[in-house]
């Protein structure tokens, strides 16, 4: 039992905006009151947030694990976590080890994360890794938009059967949601092609287009009633002029819920790299008017990172542009995953536009509930740099200081200089916690109402926003103090959220031969056993009538 007194509480879901009040914790949850015997933390001069929730990150799975092996030089540069009696060792950096991932997230007050891209064959592997990510709670999205079985069904208009297949695959992979990456494009990349336009037929199909895949999947997910809507990484990522593709994608989603991942990468105008500019205003305008959509920013920060994505075509382009090392992972799998170490530089106009676009979206999307903080870790920047973005959002002056280093040409391509909006702490609590929790459909997360999970971050009130959010005074996970005065106090195992959508068992007989043919493994050997998922917690679907 624990009582936190004297702190300013920011709990947007319950309309609490910086009022000083006690937060009580019993049995891992927020309670109305606790007895006198409870330990009391004096949080005077501090602010209290619900623990951060990351709706889109890549921290476990074949791709990030490949990136780890590709960046030994980066591991050497970072501060190392030393083993203790209770804590495993780890290395941070661009692709942190699993243990370090848990320490680093908790170390800045984040307590829940969503691994956004799990190739179906990697599901078992991903869960094995997630078991070794301590402290935080986890969920993951399984990739479906280039799944050959699903695509064949969509091609033939067999939506009902596709729904059954999707439901089976979600449960078999012990996923929480469905991710669509470059729908049809990754399938085409297996032929060295891409799918850039929504209405273009996907290479290898007669009539299937990215548009049909998006609408089909969004409809399936709504019908299954998944708590998290279709998690969409739009086609044509990162390419100049791609904002039209993004607008088309958003239009094709009318009438359905959807979450648009790393929207920044999909908001570019221009015809080529020389004329590339920000088109965030067009994106934000449409987005503001359509409440069926949520998004995460996919913001970019200047500096080193390693880019990994299931979007093979984009990765190969990046490799050609940069000439740096490149790894392309490919199994019997619908992911042509690429990995390229990359440095974003303010002197580079393209990078400057990317940097500005992420911030512009966060500032121009009016409803903070519908846009979450993300960097598409590690693609735009590493997650442990989130505090720097919060500082940029909260201070227009700081943004101007940063822009001073950029060329005039770069400034002509962006809208950021005109934007004066500054985030309040209340709004920060929305985009870092309350909003993403709501987008994920995790009703016990992202707020401090009675009965919510006691996942709490307590920060010093500090003028230096970046410092403030980098060094929480206390982080509480499920009622347990895990970080205190910058030290890791405990490393409990987190929980994993899993969905079991309904499907007819007859679908297994349909799937078996297709599955065995596609994936060269036995159907029975595929499903991830529930007991292999650390502290699995089943969440309900509410199927549409």
């Amino acid at each position, binding site marked *: 039992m624990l009582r936190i007194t004297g702190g300013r509480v920011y709990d947007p879901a319950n309309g609490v905006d910086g009022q000083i009040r006690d937060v009580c914790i019993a049995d891992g949850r927020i309670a109305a009151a606790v007895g006198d015997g409870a330990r009391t933390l004096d949080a005077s001069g501090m602010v209290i947030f619900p623990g951060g929730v990351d709706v889109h990150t890549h921290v*476990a799975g*074949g791709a990030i*694990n*490949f990136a*780890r*092996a590709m960046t*030994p030089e980066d*591991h*050497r*540069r*970072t*501060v*190392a*976590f*030393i*083993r*203790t*009696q209770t*804590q*495993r*060792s*780890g*290395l941070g*950096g661009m*692709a942190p*080890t*699993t*243990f370090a991932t848990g320490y680093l997230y908790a170390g800045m007050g984040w307590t829940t994360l969503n691994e956004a891209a799990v190739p179906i*064959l*990697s599901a*078992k*592997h991903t869960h*094995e*890794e997630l078991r*070794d990510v301590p402290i935080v709670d986890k969920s993951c999205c399984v990739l479906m938009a280039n799944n*050959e079985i699903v695509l064949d069904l969509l091609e033939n208009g067999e939506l009902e059967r596709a729904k059954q297949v999707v439901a089976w695959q979600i449960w078999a992979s012990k996923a929480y949601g469905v991710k669509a990456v470059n729908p049809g494009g990754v399938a085409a*990349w*297996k*032929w*060295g092609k891409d799918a850039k336009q929504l209405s273009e037929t996907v290479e*290898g199909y007669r009539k299937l287009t990215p548009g049909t895949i998006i609408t089909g999947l969004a409809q399936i997910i709504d019908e299954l009633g998944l708590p998290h809507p279709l998690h969409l990484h739009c086609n044509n990522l990162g390419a100049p002029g791609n904002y039209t593709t993004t607008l088309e994608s958003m239009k094709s989603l009318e009438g359905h819920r959807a979450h648009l991942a790393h929207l920044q990468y999909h908001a570019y105008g221009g015809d080529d790299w020389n004329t590339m500019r920000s088109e965030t205003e067009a994106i934000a305008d449409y987005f503001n008017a359509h409440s069926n959509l949520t998004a995460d920013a996919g913001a970019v920060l200047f500096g080193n990172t390693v880019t990994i994505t299931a979007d093979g075509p984009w990765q*190969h382009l990046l*490799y*050609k542009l940069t000439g740096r090392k*490149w*790894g*392309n*992972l*490919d*199994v*019997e799998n619908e992911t*042509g995953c690429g990995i390229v170490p990359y440095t974003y530089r303010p002197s580079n106009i393209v990078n400057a536009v990317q940097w500005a676009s992420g911030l512009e979206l966060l500032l121009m999307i009016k409803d903070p509930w519908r846009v979450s903080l993300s960097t598409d870790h590690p693609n735009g920047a590493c997650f442990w740099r989130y505090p720097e973005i919060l500082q940029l959002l909260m201070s227009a002056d700081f943004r101007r200081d940063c822009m001073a280093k950029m060329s005039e040409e770069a400034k002509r391509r962006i809208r950021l200089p005109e934007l004066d909006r500054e985030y309040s702490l209340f709004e920060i609590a929305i985009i870092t916690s309350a909003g993403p929790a709501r987008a994920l459909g995790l009703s016990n997360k992202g707020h401090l109402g009675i009965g919510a999970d006691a996942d709490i971050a307590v920060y010093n009130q500090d003028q230096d926003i970046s410092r403030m959010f980098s060094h929480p005074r206390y982080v509480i996970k499920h009622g347990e103090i895990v970080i205190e005065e910058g*030290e*890791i106090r405990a490393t409990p195992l987190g929980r994993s959220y899993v969905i079991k959508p309904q499907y007819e068992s007859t679908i297994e007989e349909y799937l078996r031969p297709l599955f065995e*043919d*596609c994936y*060269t*493994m036995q159907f029975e*050997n595929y499903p991830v*056993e529930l007991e292999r998922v650390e502290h699995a917690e089943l969440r309900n679907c509410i199927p549409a009538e």
Partner: protein
Amino acid sequence: MRNRADLVIYWGGNPAECHPRHFTKYALMPKGKHLPRGRKDRTMVLVDIRETKSVKAADIFLQIRPGRDFEVLTILRAIVKGQYVNPAMVAETGLTIEQLRDLVDRMKRARFGVMFFGMGLSMTRGKHMNSSAILTLAAELNAYTKFVAMPMRGHGNVTGADVIMRWTTGYPFGISFDRGYPRFNPGEFSTVDLLVRGDTDAALILGADPGATMPQPAIDHLARIPTIVLDPKVTHTSRLARVHITTAVTGISAPGTGYRMDEVPLPLRPALKSPYPTDEEVVRRIHELVRVKPDWLVHQPRTTQQVF
């Protein structure tokens, strides 16, 4: 690749004898969705230093002189980019420039090419640079078509070891924890080097029999220091060890998970009950005994700037 690979290259490996079902189940024979005629829709190239049983399965066999893999791969990289190659020196590899140009043409024309490389490449002179050469070639071919390269792992679950070390430590093998956090330096912390230099003073060996395979100076050092072996059999290494513990056989009498060489994990379903404990259980029990001994790391800070 089962469904798409129309050009399959095996380099320095003998799948017919070492991975008998690789041809039939995975890469060569199966009819794929986009290769309806199976084997007929694929071209298979075998590159090796001698004629093995795999040659029969190949459309094209390129026999190169021993120890010239790196040169051949480097020449291929140059030809791919239309760069200069000294024709007189090409002959020293055992191949002609025409053969190599033809190979590059086929690579570029392929819709989906795959190169599997075996220990004949990765364990011969040049070692990691040979692997690096074939991976780089594959990456560069992606400028023309879809191409991948993949090692043909020899033993059961070596891929699992690789994958697990990567996520727990950030590095794939050869990791030292002596400073309380993982450090990686092949050549320094790799087993043969450590043993040959005599730089380690105790060894726990499981799932391997170095006493049968390593160079003699390495084996001599294992015999000098306290060596502990976990194995289902009494092995060569067990005979020179201080301690041998018999364990259940992976996948036959010990359950768990194993990784396929393409990093896909599969469940192991044992058919027998072993009278012996599993490796997992023995290692855990050793760990429990070590855990209660005084910790060598008590006075360290929790995080540190790295030495290296």
